[in-house]
C-alpha cells in the first residue's frame, strides 16, 4: 500500500467520522460510543465491545445550535450542540462526558436534553492533579464509568479485555510517536495536515484497523534518509478540544515553515502517554490520566508543580524549533488563563512566538498569512543575526 493511499484512508475517516462510524456499525453490528475530549479513555469503551469515537467539531456553520448556546462559546461546544440538534449523532448509542470545562458542561446539559433516546454518561474527572487523593479519585471515576458501560452493554467488562485494549491503544500511540520522531529528524516529511489526519483518524477509527495502516506507514519511512530542510522550523501549540482547520495549517506551511513538533490535542498531546499494561487496569488508567499531565501539561488541569511554558521551551529545544505559533480557539477559557504565563516565559527566554486566535466560522486567512509571513521573517532575521 502506498503512502498516499494510507494517508487518504486516514483523511477520509478524519474528515467524516460519523459516516465512518455508520459504516463500521453496519459492518460489525456493534455499538458506537462518542466521547468528549480530552481525557476520557477510549480503552474502556473498546473493552466493552464498542467503537470509541472522540466527537469532532464539524466544518458546517452553526445553525440550529444557536438556539441552545450563546455565540460567545467556543466553536467546539457550539458545534457539538448543533450536531446533536440536527440529528447528526443518531449513529451514537451513548455519549461519555466527564470534563470540567464550564462550556463543555453547558454542552453536556444541552445535549442530554436534546438526545433523549441516547444514553449520556457523565462522571466528572478531578481536574486538580497533585492532590493526595487525585489518583484515588480518578480510579473512582474510571470504576464508575466502567460500571456505567457494563450497565449499558449488559455485560461485564473483564480485566483481560481491558488489558488487551490498553495494549492495542499503547501500540497505536507508540507508532504515532515514532512518526513524530521521524518527522522531527526529517525522515518522515509529513505535513501538519497529514499529521492531523493520522492523529484525528486514530481518535475515530477502529483501533486495530488504524494500527494496521500505521504499521505500514511507519515501514515506508523506516529506511528513509533525512531530507535537507531549508524552511523555518516551528512548533505549533494550543488548540485543545478541536482540530485546527487544515486550511490554516496549509497556509502556515506555505509561508516557508516546517512544523517539527506540536502539543496540539489533535497532535502529540493525544498520543503522548501510555497506560501501564500491568496490574489493575483501572489504577493504570488513573495513572495514565495523571502522567499525561506531567508529560504534556494541559491548561485545562491545575497542577502547581508542572509548567506548560517550561515544557514548551524544553520540547522546542529538543525539536530544534526556532519559534512557536500558538493557536488559540476563540473563547477557550483555559487557554486564555494560561497564555500570559507562556507569553512571559517566551519573552524571558527570548523565544519568538505568534498568537493566532482561531474561529469556528471562516477566518481571514489572507490577513493571517501576512502576520505569519512577517513572523517567519522575524525568526529568519534572528537566526541570521
Amino acid at each position, binding site marked *: 500500500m502506498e503512502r498516499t493511499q494510507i494517508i487518504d484512508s486516514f483523511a477520509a475517516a478524519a474528515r467524516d467520522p460519523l459516516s465512518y462510524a455508520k459504516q463500521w456499525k453496519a459492518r460489525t453490528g456493534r455499538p458506537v460510543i462518542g466521547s468528549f475530549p480530552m481525557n476520557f479513555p477510549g480503552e474502556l469503551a473498546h473493552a466493552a465491545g464498542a467503537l470509541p469515537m472522540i466527537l469532532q467539531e464539524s466544518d458546517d456553520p452553526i445553525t440550529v445550535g444557536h*438556539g*441552545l*448556546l*450563546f455565540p*460567545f*462559546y467556543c466553536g467546539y461546544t457550539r458545534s457539538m450542540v448543533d450536531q446533536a440538534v440536527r440529528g447528526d449523532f443518531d449513529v451514537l448509542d451513548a455519549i461519555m462526558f466527564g470534563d*470540567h*470545562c*464550564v*462550556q463543555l*458542561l*453547558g454542552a*453536556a*446539559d*444541552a445535549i*442530554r*436534553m436534546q438526545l433523549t433516546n441516547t444514553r*449520556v*454518561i*457523565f*462522571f*466528572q474527572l*478531578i*481536574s*486538580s492533579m497533585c*492532590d*493526595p*487523593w487525585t489518583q484515588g*479519585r480518578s480510579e473512582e471515576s474510571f470504576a464508575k464509568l466502567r460500571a456505567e458501560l457494563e450497565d449499558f452493554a449488559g455485560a461485564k467488562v473483564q480485566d483481560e479485555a481491558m488489558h488487551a485494549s490498553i495494549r492495542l491503544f499503547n501500540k497505536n500511540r507508540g507508532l504515532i510517536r515514532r512518526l513524530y520522531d521521524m518527522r522531527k529528524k526529517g525522515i518522515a516529511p509529513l505535513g501538519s495536515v497529514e499529521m492531523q489526519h493520522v492523529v484525528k483518524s486514530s481518535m475515530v477509527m477502529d483501533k486495530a484497523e488504524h494500527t494496521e495502516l500505521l504499521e505500514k506507514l511507519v515501514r515506508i519511512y523506516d529506511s528513509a534518509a533525512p531530507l535537507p530542510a531549508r524552511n523555518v522550523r516551528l512548533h505549533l501549540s494550543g488548540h485543545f478540544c478541536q482540530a485546527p482547520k487544515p486550511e490554516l495549517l496549509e497556509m502556515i506551511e506555505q509561508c516557508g515553515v516546517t512544523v517539527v513538533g506540536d502539543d496540539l490535542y489533535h497532535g502529540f498531546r493525544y498520543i503522548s502517554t501510555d497506560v501501564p499494561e500491568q496490574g489493575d487496569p483501572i489504577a493504570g488508567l488513573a495513572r495514565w490520566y495523571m502522567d499525561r499531565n506531567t508529560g504534556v501539561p494541559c*491548561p*485545562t488541569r*491545575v497542577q*502547581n508543580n508542572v509548567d506548560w511554558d517550561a515544557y514548551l521551551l524544553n520540547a522546542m529545544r529538543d525539536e530544534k524549533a526556532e519559534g512557536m505559533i500558538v493557536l488559540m480557539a*476563540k*473563547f477557550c*477559557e*483555559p487557554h*486564555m*488563563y*494560561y*497564555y*500570559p*504565563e507562556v*507569553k*512571559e516565559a517566551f519573552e524571558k527566554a527570548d523565544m519568538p512566538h505568534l498568537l493566532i486566535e482561531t474561529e469556528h466560522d471562516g477566518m481571514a486567512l489572507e490577513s493571517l498569512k501576512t502576520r505569519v509571513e512577517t513572523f517567519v521573517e522575524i525568526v529568519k532575521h534572528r537566526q541570521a543575526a
Partner: protein
Amino acid sequence: MNIAVKSPFEEKKANKLQSTRIAGKLVNDYWEMVWRAKEEGKLVCWYEGSAINPFLEAADICWVHGEAYSAMLAARHQEGTAQRVAEERGYMRELCSYARTHLGCAVSNQRLRGDNAGATPDEDDLTWKLPPPDMIISAYAYCSTGQQWDEMTSRVFGKKIPIFNVSLPWIWGSKPDAGYLRGQEWEETSTYVERQLFDMVKFIEERTGKPYPWDRLYSMMADIRRASELRLEAMELCTAQPAPASFFDWVVSIAPINNLPVAGVKDYFETVLTEVKQRVKDGEGAVPDEKYRLFFDGIMNWNKVGWLANKFAKWDAAVVAGRYTHMAFWQEPSLIDPNAPVRGMAQNYLICPNNHAAPILIDLIMGLCRKFKVDGMVIHASRTCRAFTNPQFMIADTAHKQLGIPTSMFEGDVTDESFYKDELLNSRVEAMLEAIEHRRMVHAA
C-alpha cells in the same frame, strides 16, 4: 457598544429597603479590615467561589473573596484599572471578568509590593490595595474558571504561596433516585467534599501552627444558620403583593450572608426581616406601583445594581426573585448541624445556583416562578459568566412551555460594563411587558 445614558423616567425609583444601607456600611468596614490585615499581623487567605470564610474567620485568618472584591470595585466604578492591568499582562477580554479584575489586582499587587516592586502606589487606587495572600484555597462549584483563576493567582505570585484545592463535582443526576438534595450521587458527592474540607482544616492548621478552633466554627455556623433562616423568611414574604423587597435588595444582601464577618450577619437579617414584615403590613412595595412581577435569571451586573433597580421600578415591574439570590448562599440552613457543621457546609457549597444539572436546576427555577407568581422572566446573558448562561435557553424554553410566561434576554456582564447593552434591555423588556399586558387583556375578555 451602547452607552448607558441617563434615564428619561426619573420620577419613579426603586423603593429600596432602608435596612440594606447597613449592608453598605458592613461591606466598607469589612474591606477596611482586609486592607489593615497585614498591619495587624494577620495571615491572609485568598479564595473565590464557595463561602469557606467561616473556616478562616474561626482560625483568625483574614479572608479575601475574589468575586466580592471585583464586585465591590465594579459597584464603585473603580474596576477599570484592574481590568487594564490584567489586559496588559495578556488576559483576554472574553475571560470571566470577575477573574480578570481580580487577577489585575494580583498583578498590580505584585508590581507594587512584590519581587519587582518599585512603582509608587496611588493611595486612591483600590487595585493594588489587597494584602497579598499567605495561602490560597480553591473551592469552586461548577465553573472551571474558579480553579484556573486560583491557579493563575498562585502563579502570578511566583508559586510561592501554598495552595489547597477542594474539588466540588457537578451533580449530574441521571439515576432514578436523583433529585435536589437526594439520591446516591448527592450523598456520595457530599461525603467526598466533606472529606476534603477536613483535609482543608489540616492545611489551615499547618499555616497557623495551631490546633483548629472547632468550637468557634460551631458557634459561627449556628449564627450563619440563623441568619440564613431569617433571610429566607424575609424572601418568602415577598410572595406578598406588592412585594416588599426586590431581587435588587437581595443582591445588596449577598455580601452579608456570603462573606462578611459573622458577628454582624444575624443582626443584619433581623433588621431586614423586621422591615420586610412592616412593609407587608403596610402594603408598601419595592416599586412604587407594582404592575408586573418578574423573575431575574442570571448573575448580577455589579456596575448596574441601582441603575437596574430604578429602571424596573419605572416600568412598574417588581423583580421579585432570581436564580442568583434565591438559590444560593447558605440556601439550605437545615442541613447545617451547628454541632457538626462540616457535612452541611459541604452540601451548601454543592448548592451553588449552577451546580445541579439542568433538569434539577430548571425544576427549582420553575418552582420559584410559581411561588412568587411571576408574569415574566428577564434573563441576563452575562457575556463572561458561562456558568450562568449555560442553561438559559433551556430555562427560557421551559418557562414558555410549563408556565406560559414570556421571557426577555439582555446582554451584560458581571463586572465589565462594556458588554452591557442598554437599548437592547429597554426594547426587549418593554416588548415583554407589552406581551404580558396583551395576555391579560385576552384573559380578561
